[in-house]
């Protein structure tokens, strides 16, 4: 505009020299437009007839440009549409006439041609595409070309159905084992995608999915009638992989998830229950036979469908619970506690391996395993005792010669079982008893192993659980030191008497055994008294009580023909045997009177001295198996053994007899009462007012690491606390309790 103004100002100087717009238009006369169009039309024909090489791009472009410029865009556009349509109709007929397998090839070929043509046409008509098309809201050339192809070829009545059928037929053939032209398929499906995803979906994908669904529905029905579970799953996996491969080779990527879910639904989801429960080959059989491959396959296949994994998990859980229930109630197996626990450990190992190998270490499966174990272990209320006995066996002899790692592995595995126990306080009671026997008899495989176990229990249950156990170890050490000192100071006075080794046990740390002391032989009594005096001299204010049911003794015995043996016996046994120094034969009652050993213990003691082959240092009349109060006992002169040292002690931890078991259980119940009360008081002190059910829930939660409190017992404790005026019922709502400060 600058020059104009300049010229204007110039013109003003020059007096009214105007520059005006073109007065005369360069009109394109209609005949010219028609002529131009004809040129272009001809070009389009040539392009379609593959004769494009002779055309001048520049000239054609200019022609089109001019038409648009001179407002003949409409004519150009509608001409284009008409021309292309005419060609496409011809192409359609050509494709329709193709026979059999050539149909698709023809279609593919013509499609390629059309695309090439379209490109050229678009280039020629680019100006129209850019200026006329947007302003008149017409479809751009390329898209127009595609739409026309779609409407006149793909959706032509004689082609549409045939195309679909042909494609689906090829897929079917490939599924049944034929080899097909995948490249051709890919081109066709790509063509459909290019025409628009709705074309692909409506003309191919939807029918494809429908047909596939019914195909797999039929096939799965067939398979499931004749295959076992493992084979079926293999087939399903194969089909699934096939479909994914199919998609990658000649279908649109978005089809993958649709076809795979169809296969998953037909082959897996619809038959899940039947597969899992199949006789002789279902999930349970796979678990029993450790079929890792099959299980792994089942897991990855079922993972794909809703509720798949939970189906596996539920069946596994109910199987485990039932199996576990059978194990823990099997009376034969229960006769050997160590075997029993080993069995449980084996089951755990087996299923751990299955979960890690085949189930991808899936946490939900681990949880199901844990809850199943927790369920059945607690079905047998002797489980805590038996686990302690198992540990006793291992720590006493089973782990002899094992490396540190091996020991840790075993202990850790047992700890897993321990964690499942609901009544951990019962375990504690037994463990204490068994540990006491091990320590006192000196029969422990490794001090380190013992301590390692204590550490594990402490980590799991806290300091309180293990403080007494640790006290036991301390007592043992202290006793050692005490004995050294005793002998150092007293050796002159003791002279030739029996050598004494005392273990001083702190009451409270050790399991309480209220037994009256028996009558010790005079030689023993003397040295014991000397010790007592010595000890109380340095520890005044303490009280010592001999635990004669827990000691051991080594006796030198001379039998007939001068055979000498050293007998390792319990204290009770020693008391009995020493009597035979002054008598050859004694009745049961005489022995009882002289020793004052409690009846049950005495019978056990005499049985071990007189009725066990290879250890019968006493002879009994009559020679029956059991001890009766009428029996008479004699020193067995004829005793022989190939060992010089003979062990007859009976201080090994054993499965409790029924009355002993009742007693232990009773003590456990008594111990629980104050714990429950303490929990109630703690809770009420902080909450002040609380309803009954909430108290029960809170108490259970607080105590669950030790035992599962019985709600009736909790109720009784609450009433006891009401009676003792720690709590009261709310006046308005009788279900509420109040804390009384």
């Amino acid at each position: 505009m600058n020059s104009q103004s300049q010229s204007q100002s110039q013109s003003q100087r020059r007096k009214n020299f105007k520059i005006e717009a073109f007065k005369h238009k360069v009109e394109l006369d209609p005949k010219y437009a028609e002529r131009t169009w004809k040129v272009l039309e001809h070009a389009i024909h040539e392009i379609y007839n593959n004769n494009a090489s002779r055309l001048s791009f520049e000239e054609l472009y200019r022609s089109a440009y001019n038409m648009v410029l001179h407002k003949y865009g409409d004519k150009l556009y509608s001409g284009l549409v008409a021309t292309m349509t005419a060609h496409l109709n011809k192409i359609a007929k050509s494709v329709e006439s193709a026979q059999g397998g050539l149909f698709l090839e023809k279609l593919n070929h013509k499609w390629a041609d059309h695309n090439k043509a379209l490109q050229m046409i678009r280039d020629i008509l680019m100006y129209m595409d850019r200026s006329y098309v947007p302003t008149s809201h017409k479809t751009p050339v390329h898209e127009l070309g595609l739409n026309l192809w779609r409407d006149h070829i793909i959706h032509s009545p004689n082609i549409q159905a045939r195309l679909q059928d042909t494609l689906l037929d090829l897929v079917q053939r490939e599924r049944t084992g034929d080899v097909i032209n995948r490249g051709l398929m890919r081109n066709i499906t790509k063509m459909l995608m290019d025409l628009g995803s709705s074309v692909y979906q409506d003309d191919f994908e939807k029918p494809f999915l429908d047909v596939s669904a019914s195909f797999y529905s039929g096939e799965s029905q067939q398979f499931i009638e004749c295959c076992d579970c493992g084979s079926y799953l293999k087939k399903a996996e194969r089909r699934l992989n096939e479909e994914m491969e199919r998609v990658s080779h000649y279908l649109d990527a978005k089809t993958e998830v649709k076809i795979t879910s169809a296969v998953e639904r037909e082959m897996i989801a619809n038959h899940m229950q039947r597969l899992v429960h199949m006789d002789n080959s279902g999930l349970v059989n796979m678990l029993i036979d450790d079929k890792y491959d099959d299980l792994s396959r089942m897991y990855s296949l079922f993972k794909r469908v809703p509720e798949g994994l939970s189906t596996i998990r539920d069946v596994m859980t109910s199987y485990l619970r039932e199996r576990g229930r059978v194990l823990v109630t099997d009376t034969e197996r229960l006769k050997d506690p160590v075997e029993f626990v080993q069995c449980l450990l084996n089951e755990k190992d087996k299923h751990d391996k299955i979960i890690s190998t085949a189930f991808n270490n899936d946490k939900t499966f681990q949880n199901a395993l844990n809850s199943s174990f927790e369920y059945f272990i607690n079905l047998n209320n002797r489980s805590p005792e038996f686990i302690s006995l198992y540990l006793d066996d291992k720590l006493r002899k089973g782990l002899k010669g094992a490396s540190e790692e091996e020991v840790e592995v075993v202990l850790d595995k047992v700890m897993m079982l321990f964690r499942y126990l609901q009544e951990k306080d019962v375990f504690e009671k037994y463990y204490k008893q068994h540990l006491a026997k091990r320590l006192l008899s000196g029969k422990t495989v490794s001090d380190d192993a013992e301590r390692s176990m204590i550490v594990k229990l402490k980590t799991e249950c806290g300091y309180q659980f293990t403080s007494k156990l640790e006290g036991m170890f301390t007592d043992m050490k202290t006793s050692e030191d005490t004995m050294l000192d005793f002998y150092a100071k007293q050796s002159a006075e003791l002279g030739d008497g029996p050598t004494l080794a005392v273990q001083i046990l702190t009451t409270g740390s050790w399991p309480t055994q209220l037994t009256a002391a028996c009558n010790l032989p005079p030689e023993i009594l003397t040295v014991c008294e000397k010790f007592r005096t010595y000890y109380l001299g340095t520890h005044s204010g303490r009280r010592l009580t001999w635990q004669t049911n827990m000691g051991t003794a080594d006796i030198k015995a001379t039998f007939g023909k001068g055979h000498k043996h050293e007998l390792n016996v319990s204290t009770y046994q020693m008391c009995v045997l020493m009597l035979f120094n002054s008598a050859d034969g004694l009745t049961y009652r005489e022995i009882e009177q002289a020793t004052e050993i409690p009846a049950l213990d005495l019978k056990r003691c005499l049985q071990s001295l007189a009725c066990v082959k290879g250890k019968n240092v006493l002879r009994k009349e009559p020679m029956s198996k059991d001890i009766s109060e009428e029996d008479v006992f004699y020193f067995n002169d004829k005793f022989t053994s190939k060992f010089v040292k003979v062990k007859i002690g009976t201080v090994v931890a054993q499965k409790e007899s029924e009355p002993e078991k009742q007693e232990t259980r009773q003590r456990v119940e008594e111990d629980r009462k104050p714990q429950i009360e303490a929990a109630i008081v703690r809770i009420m002190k902080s909450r002040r007012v609380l309803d009954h059910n909430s108290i029960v829930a809170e108490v259970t939660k607080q105590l669950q690491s030790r035992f599962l409190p019985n709600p009736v017992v909790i109720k009784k404790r609450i009433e006891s606390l009401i009676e003792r005026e720690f709590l009261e019922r709310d006046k308005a709502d009788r279900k509420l309790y109040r804390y009384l400060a």
Partner: protein
Amino acid sequence: MMSKLGRGQKDKVQQFMAITGASEKVALQALKASDWHLEGAFDIFYSQPQIRAVTDTRHLEELYKRYRDPDVDMILVEGISLLCNDLQVDPQDIVMLVLSWHMKAATMCEFSCQEFIGGLQSLGVDSIPKLREKLPSLRNELRDEHKFREIYNFAFSWAREKGQKPLALDTALGMWRLLFSEKHWPLVEHWCQFLQVRHNKAISRDTWSQLLEFVKTIDPQLSNYDEEGAWPYLIDEFVEYLTENGIVPSRK
């Protein structure tokens, strides 16, 4: 008390006492309750017949002397026997329990001087004939829900042996039979049998008081009994006992 009142209020009290013959305490009560309106106070006074009667302290002291034990300053078993005789009432009669309640007696079979005199005063009687007249209304009090509960709970501490926290079983059974023949409970015999067979120990206060709630709220067929109802464990066991023996329909 009077010193804290204004002149107008003091006048009203005097007036009230003159007209009704009531004691100063009663006058104050009535007037306070009616917000110092004399008319309202009269209404209140005359609608509560117990307060109306005036008692003569001297008569009461005479009465006490009649029943008092020669060696101890208490009315003991013999005195009570005599009292019952005078009243023409069986010593086992439940009305004696109601009477003891009015007296706020600490232990059964004895009344202290304070308890005896205070109790009769609160009843507004000062002679045996007057007391005898009152007996029917005392009996009636058992029909009042509220009062029955108070009397029932009172009975626990009253029937206890001195120095004992729980109530001896035999005594409890006797009391229950007595109380629940008044307020009819069809299961009372079963309850007593159950306790003798299964429990055979003393009864705690909580169990005692909760039993009344049980009787009041749970129907004899136990259709609305709730295991989660925080009932004392004895009552839970009783329910089990009834179900086991087919006395009530099975709960499943």
